[in-house]
């Protein structure tokens, strides 16, 4: 394999791909655990109540049970946002959703653990429970959290520009109410955690599915009241994340508590049902959106109200409701925006971050309404988008920096590829085309846990063997981030990709990393990796310069050979230069770092940091559908998508990310939704929760647009999230194009579509009767 920029244009296979295709890759539940106890969680059977009695003595007395822990064992709250840590790993005094962990056991085997759970006695004085945002917001509703009257976790009220003037200047003003069901990440690897507390030396090692090992480390120390130096967090292979694991999860802390109580290793594998109970995904959202538009398609003003049903605890909620407003911006040039967001507590599993965090549902409403207004004004949907493009570099009204933007090119590409102009309006009955645009951040410019440290650090090591080792805390969860790091290092150094090894996610050896969230790794860790490799390169260039009797700045390395400039003389092989460099200083470790400058960290208004980033990715997509009016089924025939990722460091991986994100958007658009009956999830399996199978998944034609971001690593930006949010509106717009019905609810299930069709027939009959009389 090579990291030569020309040959990698086809893309590079994952550096850990062989492990994955051979079954050698060990995920958390695969780790050696023959000597481990099995952990199981006792969960609240009611949605809301005060704990009257919790008696675990019978469970504790069962032969084979080694430890039982309850809320008594951990008086510390945890959470991802320092301002909103309102959750205990195991409930204390009160339970707030069905399935909330109350107690946990560690036993010699799964059967014994299950029997122990049956012996736990639990009495609750029930409180009224709220399953919708409207119920929870009622004036007489009992607050889930005493400090949050009205069950309002956070209200956001932002106004930028002159909204009144904007609407006054509009030729057309439209307002819609659009709602999106709650969805779940449904990563295929179920959650699991392996904790090993050694009572003989007081040290704890935790291996878990986390996307954020550093935060896990901090929360373990906090909840177990341990010194961080006695804890080690190791990341095994991770079977997908999509945001499911970007905050520390209750079972991770519970496993560690059990391990300490038992004085030994505990493996806690969660069932699929428990994955749905752990949740932390995209909330059910109601949106009221009003746009003003001139006859030429130019947007004059936007007013948006978003209500998110956030579940029982804070999690990322404040960030989600801020994103929903902040990312109305950064894609189009809109002169005035008013945003009101309400994040509401309800007695359901807590929501959190999911791919496209906060932006997806707002973008859905926005792109649907743009299309409807375009239709009313007789404008093509592409024309309306083009009329409102941002021109980089610029700053948005809410102080987000936009350094590069290839959306115009994305639009051109999908318009051409789908043969939009030739085909729109000329398709046979029941067939339709729809389009939409979307964007996403390349890493939140301000870290969640602000420490003042660099935003990313990568260490690069070189020793006698000539192997280059990149040490990173960044979590490869399948997106290929370790491969990206290897390419960045190899290409900067001018060595073969095979020479580079990446060691990732072990707090004992790798530098701290904020984690795999907000698509930050390519931009931030990529830049840090290049920085480290450049430092190593200068050390090697100095050694080579001495041997070649030249100046270090004139030394180049390509194809593992050091030469003076581009002269064709026989150069020095890499390994000889390594040996020369080691003579001076012994084994080499150099750190590389990257930070987003303060001016990129968003506005000074409250919540202004959310949405800020060094680079937005941009995407446009066209979706072609067939609608069967007999059974209400929508089939996606084809998708054309173009995404501006600045530069594709690994085109193969970029394509894979774009395909995967578009397809995940399709799941949300067509079939995925959680459903609760009195707080009981009735969707908690992969049969009930309808993730699209290969049978109904369309061909996706991907085009990569490279706008070369001035600050991105090799010009790169993110590629994993930006395209997701465009799919649901493109689909709804395509359905409107096919059958003339605008749908206001996601997902577009056959039930919902049939209802809309029946309603249309009813109205048509009514109109006909009126005309007749």
């Amino acid at each position, binding site marked *: 394999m090579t990291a030569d920029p020309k040959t990698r244009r086809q*893309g590079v*296979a*994952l550096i850990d*791909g*062989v492990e*994955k*295709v*051979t*079954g*050698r890759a*060990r*995920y958390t539940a*695969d780790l050696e655990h023959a000597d481990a106890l099995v952990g199981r969680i006792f969960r609240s059977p009611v949605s809301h109540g005060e704990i009257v009695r919790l008696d675990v003595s*019978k469970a504790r*007395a*069962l*032969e*084979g049970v080694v430890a039982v822990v309850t809320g008594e064992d951990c008086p510390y709250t945890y959470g991802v946002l320092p301002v909103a840590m309102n959750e205990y790993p195991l409930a204390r005094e009160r339970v707030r959703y069905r399935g909330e962990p109350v107690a946990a056991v560690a036993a*010699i085997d799964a*059967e*014994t653990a299950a*029997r122990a759970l049956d*012996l736990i006695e639990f009495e609750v004085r029930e409180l009224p429970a709220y399953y919708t945002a409207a119920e929870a917001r009622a004036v007489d509703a009992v607050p889930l959290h005493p400090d949050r009257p009205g069950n309002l976790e956070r209200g956001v009220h932002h106004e930028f520009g002159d909204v009144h003037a904007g609407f006054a200047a509009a030729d057309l003003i439209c307002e819609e109410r659009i709602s999106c069901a709650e969805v779940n*990440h449904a*990563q*295929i*690897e*179920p959650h699991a955690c392996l904790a090993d507390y050694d009572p003989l030396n007081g040290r704890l090692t935790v291996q878990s599915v986390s996307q954020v090992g550093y935060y896990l480390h901090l929360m373990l120390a906090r909840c177990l009241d341990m010194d961080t130096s006695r804890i080690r967090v190791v990341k095994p*292979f*991770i*079977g*997908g994340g*999509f945001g499911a694991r970007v905050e520390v999860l209750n079972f991770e802390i519970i496993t560690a508590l059990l391990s300490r109580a038992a004085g030994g290793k505990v493996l806690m*594998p969660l*069932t*699929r*049902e428990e994955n749905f109970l752990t949740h932390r995904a995209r909330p059910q959202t109601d949106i009221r959106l009003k746009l003003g538009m001139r006859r030429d398609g130019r947007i004059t003003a936007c007013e948006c109200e978003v209500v998110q049903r956030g579940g029982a605890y804070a999690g990322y909620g404040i960030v989600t409701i801020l994103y929903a407003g902040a990312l109305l911006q950064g894609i189009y040039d809109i002169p005035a925006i008013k945003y009101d967001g309400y994040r509401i507590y309800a007695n359901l599993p807590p929501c959190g971050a999911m791919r496209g965090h906060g932006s997806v549902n707002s973008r859905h409403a926005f792109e649907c309404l743009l299309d409807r207004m375009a239709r009313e004004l007789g404008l093509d949907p592409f024309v309306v988008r083009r009329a409102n493009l941002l021109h980089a570099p610029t700053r948005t009204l809410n102080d987000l920096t936009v350094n590069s933007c290839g959306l115009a090119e994305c639009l051109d590409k999908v318009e051409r590829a789908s043969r939009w102009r030739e085909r729109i309006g000329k398709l046979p009955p029941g067939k339709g085309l729809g389009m939409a645009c979307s964007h996403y951040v390349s890493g939140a410019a301000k870290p969640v846990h602000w420490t003042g440290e660099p935003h990313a650090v990568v260490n690069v090591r070189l020793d006698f063997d000539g192997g280059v080792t990149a040490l990173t805390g960044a979590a490869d*969860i*399948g997106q*290929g981030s370790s491969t990206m790091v290897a390419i960045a290092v190899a290409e900067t150094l001018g060595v073969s990709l095979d020479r580079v090894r990446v060691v990732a996610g072990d707090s004992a050896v790798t530098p701290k990393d904020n984690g795999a969230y907000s698509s930050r790794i390519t931009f931030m860790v990529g830049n840090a990796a290049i920085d480290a490799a450049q430092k190593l390169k200068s050390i090697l260039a100095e050694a080579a310069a001495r041997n070649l009797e030249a100046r270090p700045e004139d030394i180049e390395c390509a194809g593992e050979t050091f030469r003076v400039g581009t002269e064709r003389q026989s150069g020095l092989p890499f390994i000889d230069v390594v040996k020369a460099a080691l003579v001076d200083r012994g084994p080499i470790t150099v750190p590389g770092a990257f930070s987003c400058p303060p001016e990129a960290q968003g506005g000074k208004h409250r919540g202004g940091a959310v949405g800020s980033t060094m680079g937005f990715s941009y995407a446009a997509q066209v979706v072609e559908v067939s609608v069967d009016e007999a059974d209400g089924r929508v089939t996606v025939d084809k998708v054309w998508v173009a995404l501006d990722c600045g530069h594709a460091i690994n085109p*193969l*991986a970029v*394509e*894979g990310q774009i*395909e*995967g994100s*578009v*397809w*995940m958007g*399709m799941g949300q658009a067509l079939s995925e939704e959680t459903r609760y009956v009195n707080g009981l999830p009735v969707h908690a*399996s*992969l*049969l009930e929760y309808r*993730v699209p*199978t*290969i*049978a109904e*998944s369309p*061909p*996706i034609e991907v085009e990569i647009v490279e706008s070369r971001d001035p600050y991105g690593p090799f010009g790169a930006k993110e590629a994993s999230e930006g395209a997701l949010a465009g799919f649901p509106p493109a689909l709804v717009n395509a359905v409107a194009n096919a059958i003339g019905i605008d749908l206001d609810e996601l997902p577009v299930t056959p039930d919902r579509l049939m209802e809309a069709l029946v309603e249309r027939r009813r109205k048509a009959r009514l109109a006909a009767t009126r005309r007749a009389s």
Partner: protein
Amino acid sequence: MQTASPQPRKRLIRVKLNGRWREDAVAENHLLVDYLRDVARMTGVKTGCDGGECGACTVLLDGVAMPSCIMLAARCDGRTVETIEGLVRHGRLNRLQRAFHQKLGTQCGFCTPGMIMAAEGLLRRNPHPSDAEIRNALSGNLCRCTGYVKIIESVKAAAEMLP
């Protein structure tokens, strides 16, 4: 003190696993997936759901792809079981493994062993499947990363390679 759970009865089974016969005592209620993972330590066989939903545990039983989580180990007595671990021969990846690796048919990798085994079952009975036949054969295997585009490409590429 309550006593531990009564031990279920065990049976001795003989299974040809990845080309080698082995004998194990297994509980009558022991699932094949648990036998493969916990007893034979073939952890390439994955558990992704609570039973028969996701296909991550797919293995070949007498050459036919099936989820090992809805099969009792005891029923495999005298039969041939193949897992992802058995596909590498003489230090060489099987053609599906090569294709999934090169074409990025795998991202997080968790569904990959089951996906490859389902595809292997398909290619053995149908060496040149159409897109529709690939979709049909893999429709019980969920992937959450790829959108399946590169999985279909991988299977097609593998079908073009020498076995």
